[in-house]
């Protein structure tokens, strides 16, 4: 691939993002107070912004890569990523908005009236954020290497540099407009090239699914996933979305609880549309780029497919578009995470000053950079799903029980979160130790581990995808310890629950003037 296309696309998307951030910021300053303005953000804008922040490297590149290597088993990932928002809608969206909390630690403290719960939650949020940024940087490294031929570390460093710069100068604050733009950019960048490819293929009477051969399991390069893996994966993805720090921040900008629900409903629609396209890329890739699945570069399918199937200038333009979309994915998710992490870290460690926020932002970006440079890239969608397993085992029980059960106590919450977190992290570490101890060169060993038919493979699956048992354990511990420490229930619980669940006053009585 011509390196100039890669440079142009990356530079272009960075410049456009910075420009919109700059002008978006000026517009938002001339309206009125930031909080008032943010309370009047319409659900459509808000939903686009959530979609823009959520669709990460795993969605843009990773899902197509997984379907390339594992066929139909890979389809569970986009379903889980989308349906996670259904769970968010059912159990969290409106009450979280009504709590008025800007971050998860805020919510924990105001619900349980305990500084200690706040600290534990803050620590978990930071860990989750760091490990969510790492796959983004891996994705950037891959994209830069494939498209420009530069060494991998350049991509990761470039993303961190752009994000630090924009976050620190304030050009990329949580302005709804920037992130909303990112969703539509990503949708365009993934949809337009593949639609062109499909048109060209049908016009040239070339095969699209090769008479169904694209769906055959013989093209899979990994062993089929067992029932346990799919169950555990769905548990992680469905309940992990509830606790993602950069997503939760956005719910605060809804006008009220009802709008938070409508926003989530629209997010579901936006994600459903987006996730149709990686599957199409993967199906085409299984026919036209099968070598990517065997040489471990399946995550590059989306980047390479348009250029491979459409030659000439049109192919270059479409390639530039997908590269721009991928880069937008790394930038928006990383900056969303860095902003939300910096908010948490600066409040808890640096007293909430602007200077503290900047130091925290740099810290939040540099530590994952070090981890990303020190570790090899796993399959993108796979490593993100481990982060979901971790949030599902820690922050999800805190949110669900905190919102729906008045019996939750601070000690119970801490015990549940620590148990879930430690079990989940230990299982993932043990699983990867087990995988690396098996001779990696022989495909037989890999398929033994992936199959649940024999005991070694079963235990590997139980450790590598722990959500199916760590989530219930975390819930049980949280409930049991709360029951044992009944005397620590916060006072004024009825008032807190009323605030979480009672609908806001009808719109006519609102004292906030509507903008626009």
């Amino acid at each position, binding site marked *: 691939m011509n390196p100039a296309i890669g440079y142009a696309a990356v530079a272009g998307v960075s410049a456009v993002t910075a420009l919109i951030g700059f002008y978006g910021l000026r517009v938002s300053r001339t309206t009125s107070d930031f909080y008032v303005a943010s309370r009047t953000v319409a659900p459509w804008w808000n939903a686009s912004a959530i979609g823009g922040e959520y669709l990460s490297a795993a969605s843009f590149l990773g899902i197509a890569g997984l379907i390339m290597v594992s066929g139909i088993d890979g389809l569970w990932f986009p379903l889980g990523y989308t349906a996670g928002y259904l769970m968010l809608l059912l159990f969290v969206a409106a009450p979280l908005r009504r709590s008025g909390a800007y971050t998860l630690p805020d919510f924990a403290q105001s619900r349980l009236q305990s500084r200690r719960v706040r600290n534990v939650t803050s620590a978990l949020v930071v860990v989750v954020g760091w490990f969510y940024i790492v796959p983004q940087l891996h994705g950037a490294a891959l994209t830069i290497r494939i498209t420009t031929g530069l060494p991998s570390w350049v991509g990761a460093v470039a993303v961190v540099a752009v994000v630090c710069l924009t976050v620190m100068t304030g050009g990329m604050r949580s302005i709804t407009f920037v992130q909303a733009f990112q969703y539509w950019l990503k949708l365009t960048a993934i949809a337009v090239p593949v639609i062109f490819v499909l048109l060209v293929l049908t016009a040239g009477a070339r095969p699209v699914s090769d008479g169904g051969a694209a769906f055959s399991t013989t093209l899979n390069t990994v062993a089929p996933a067992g029932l346990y893996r*799919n169950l555990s994966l769905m548990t992680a993805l469905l309940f992990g979305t509830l606790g993602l720090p950069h997503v939760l921040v956005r719910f605060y900008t809804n006008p009220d609880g009802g709008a938070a629900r409508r926003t989530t409903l629209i997010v579901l629609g936006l994600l459903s549309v987006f996730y149709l396209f990686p599957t199409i890329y993967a199906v085409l890739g299984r026919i036209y780029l099968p070598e990517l699945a065997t040489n471990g570069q399946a995550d590059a399918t989306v980047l390479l497919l348009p250029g491979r199937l459409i030659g000439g200038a049109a192919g270059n333009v479409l390639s530039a578009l997908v590269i721009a979309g991928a880069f937008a994915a790394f930038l928006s998710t990383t900056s969303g995470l860095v902003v939300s992490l910096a908010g948490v870290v600066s409040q808890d460690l640096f007293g909430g000053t602007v200077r503290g926020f900047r130091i925290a932002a740099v810290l939040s970006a540099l530590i994952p950079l070090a981890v990303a440079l020190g570790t090899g890239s796993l399959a993108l969608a796979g490593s993100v799903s481990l982060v979901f397993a971790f949030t599902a085992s820690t922050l999800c029980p805190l949110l669900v029980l905190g919102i729906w059960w008045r019996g939750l106590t601070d000690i119970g919450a801490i015990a549940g979160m620590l148990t879930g977190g430690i079990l989940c992290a230990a299982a993932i570490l043990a699983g990867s130790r087990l995988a690396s101890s098996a001779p990696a060169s022989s495909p037989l060993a890999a398929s033994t581990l992936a199959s649940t038919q024999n005991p070694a493979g079963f235990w590997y699956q139980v450790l590598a995808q722990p959500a199916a048992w760590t989530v219930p354990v975390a819930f049980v511990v949280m409930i049991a310890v709360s029951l044992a420490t009944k005397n620590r229930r916060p006072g004024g619980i009825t008032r807190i629950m009323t605030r979480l669940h009672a609908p806001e006053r009808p719109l006519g009585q609102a004292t906030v003037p509507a903008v626009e």
Partner: protein
Amino acid sequence: MNDDGETPARVRVVAPRNLAQRSPGPIPVAREVAEQTDVGEVFITSLIRSQLRLAVVVAAGFLLLVAGCGLLLALAPQLHSITVLTVPLPWLVLGAGIYPVTGLCAWLFVRSAARNEARYRDLIGEK
């Protein structure tokens, strides 16, 4: 937006330090009563219970559907031989067909949850 073109003074926006901010404006009497009396507690408890029941029913329905899909795929491999335009049925269901169902569940929930809240408003005497 202001039309006169003059730029207002820069306002520094910071997150609330610790505790969450309440929504601005005075709290109406009906809400005060609802929060602080025994009757109000009964009302809010019943609202929470009906919202939770609704959420659990929708979640259980959706999870059963997904689990059913997973089981069917695992137990009935012959489903793969049913194809529409060369695409096997399981691919169609998991790759596209299940998304509208997710949206439908979400839409039903949003409607019913709003209805529960309207009922609560009637109970505490808000318009």
